[in-house]
């Protein structure tokens, strides 16, 4: 019989430490739906999504019941819509409305892929899609959007960076009556992965198969509880403890992915080994760092602790899964993490410290609420800084900031649900970055040798 201790450990992880599968995300290629007539293309998109993902939610629920493990989100990612817009021309928001309708019909939580890949330049459909993002996100409920503005091999497309700063601000303005929620569904990427199951940045890359199933695991609470059992251990021991815990969490993701792909007859893609926090107490990445010995997340030492955590999660997870991909690492979304929210409120965690943290963790400046009067140029400059970190370090970075329209430092913004809430954080923008951003052009790709 299976070891009693192991059984009780698993149950404790689920009941008390918020262990869950964060998402099963079905990737659906829409390349077969491209048509010179936008209306016809939209019909094909609706049919393909609803046909391919018909059993997704039911399969997820059946797995939850059988294995007793919660699956929080069932999601869909699709081919970057700019590719459909390239074929059809016209207003791309018709695709956003179609995606929204399909998501509602299927009962999924989010659908991602209102996206464009412009890291080296714009092709047909890209500029139209970027210009339409604010409308698309304000008119839909489930659609998420992302744009890749740079890569280590191509450099940073600063024209796209300038456009995205405007898109972020305009999206926040158009959804100001709903806590500026549109901006929470818009991610600007550097080195975007094509198989990421996490929102808002999920899209189905053009190199992916027709259909694929990706799984995102979670479990900051489990890691924190494991670290808490070793209050006096040195950091070598802590790294080992995290690796072992990450292994167990990832094995569960691998199992769920395999079973779900069998049930749905869709090939299994990857497990994304991410520690994704939620605003729930006991599900915080910041609290893991604090458990390691930092009084509050954001004090000196935070970057080092996060680097250890991020690396140990990957090392533990890699062996537990046949294919690892997506973002894989620790997320640090401020408004979605109870510990980060507290640290930001008391001023210990600043945007500048978060920027440093993004150099060693899996994504970037995520779910940060900034003053409502922040200019588009400042947002663009933040995007450029973050992209530079990702470009030089050959890693994914991203920016998802939410200008809180009508609010300023000291105020709070509340999204509800997994997106959480948080304080408006101070930016160092008394002096302007506008002239730099307005230059446009491309920042050349960095040298990959002579690394210092």
């Amino acid at each position, binding site marked *: *019989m*299976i070891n009693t201790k*192991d059984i009780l*450990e*698993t149950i404790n992880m689920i009941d008390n430490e918020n262990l869950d599968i964060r998402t099963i995300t079905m990737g659906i290629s829409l390349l077969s739906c491209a048509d010179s007539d936008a209306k016809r293309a939209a019909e094909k998109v609706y049919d393909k999504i609803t046909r391919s993902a018909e059993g997704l939610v039911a399969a997820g629920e*059946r797995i939850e019941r*059988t294995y*007793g493990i919660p699956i929080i989100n069932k999601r869909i990612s699709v081919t970057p819509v700019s590719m459909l817009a390239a074929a059809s021309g016209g207003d791309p928001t018709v695709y956003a409305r179609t995606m929204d309708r399909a998501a509602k019909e299927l009962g999924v939580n989010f659908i991602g892929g209102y996206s464009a890949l412009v890291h080296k330049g714009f092709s047909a459909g890209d500029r139209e899609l970027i210009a339409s993002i604010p409308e698309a996100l304000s008119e839909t409920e489930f659609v998420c959007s992302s744009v890749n503005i740079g890569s280590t091999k191509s450099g940073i497309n600063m024209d796209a960076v300038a456009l995205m700063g405007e898109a972020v601000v305009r999206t926040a303005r158009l959804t100001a009556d709903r806590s500026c929620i549109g901006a929470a569904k818009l991610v600007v990427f550097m080195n975007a992965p094509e198989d990421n199951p996490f929102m808002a940045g999920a899209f189905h890359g053009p190199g992916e198969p027709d259909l694929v199933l990706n799984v995102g695991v979670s479990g900051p609470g489990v890691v924190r509880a494991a670290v808490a059992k070793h209050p006096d251990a040195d950091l070598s021991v802590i790294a080992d403890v995290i690796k072992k815990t990450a292994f167990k969490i990832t094995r569960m993701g*691998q199992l769920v992915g395999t079973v779900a792909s069998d049930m749905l007859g869709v090939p299994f893609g990857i497990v994304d080994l991410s520690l994704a926090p939620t605003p729930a107490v006991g599900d915080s990445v910041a609290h893991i760092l604090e458990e390691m010995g930092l009084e509050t997340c954001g004090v000196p030492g935070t970057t080092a602790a996060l680097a250890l955590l991020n690396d140990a999660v990957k090392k533990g997870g890699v062996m537990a899964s046949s294919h690892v991909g997506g973002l894989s690492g620790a997320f640090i979304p401020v408004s979605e993490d109870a510990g980060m929210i507290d640290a930001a409120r008391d001023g210990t965690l600043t945007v500048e410290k978060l920027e440093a943290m993004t150099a060693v963790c899996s994504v970037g400046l995520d779910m940060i609420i900034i003053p409502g009067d922040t200019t588009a140029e400042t947002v663009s400059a933040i995007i450029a800084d973050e992209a530079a970190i990702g470009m030089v370090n050959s890693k994914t970075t991203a920016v998802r900031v939410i200008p809180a329209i009508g609010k300023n430092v000291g105020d709070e913004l509340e999204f509800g649900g997994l997106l959480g809430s948080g304080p408006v954080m101070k930016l160092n923008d008394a002096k302007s970055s506008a002239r730099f951003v307005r230059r446009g052009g491309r920042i050349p790709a960095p040298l990959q040798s002579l690394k210092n």
Partner: protein
Amino acid sequence: MKAVITVIGRDTVGILAKVSSACAEKGANIIDVTQSVMRDMFTMIMLVDIDGLTSDFSDLSSSLEALGEEIGMKVHVMHEDIFNSMHRI
């Protein structure tokens, strides 16, 4: 295929009997049982064969969870694969 049923809560009379008869009713064959009582806290782990279930897995777990609520115990019914994959290489 096998499932693991765990029952945790304050010890009272007849827990094992009630859980066993619920299993029998649904066609789950009990293979192994281990239980312990520490300071009034009762923990029972039961391994059952689910190949001969008279209905589906979900029905077995909902009826056992409902029984758990009735007798004031926390009951989990989980497919054994989750433990095998998490705790064995």
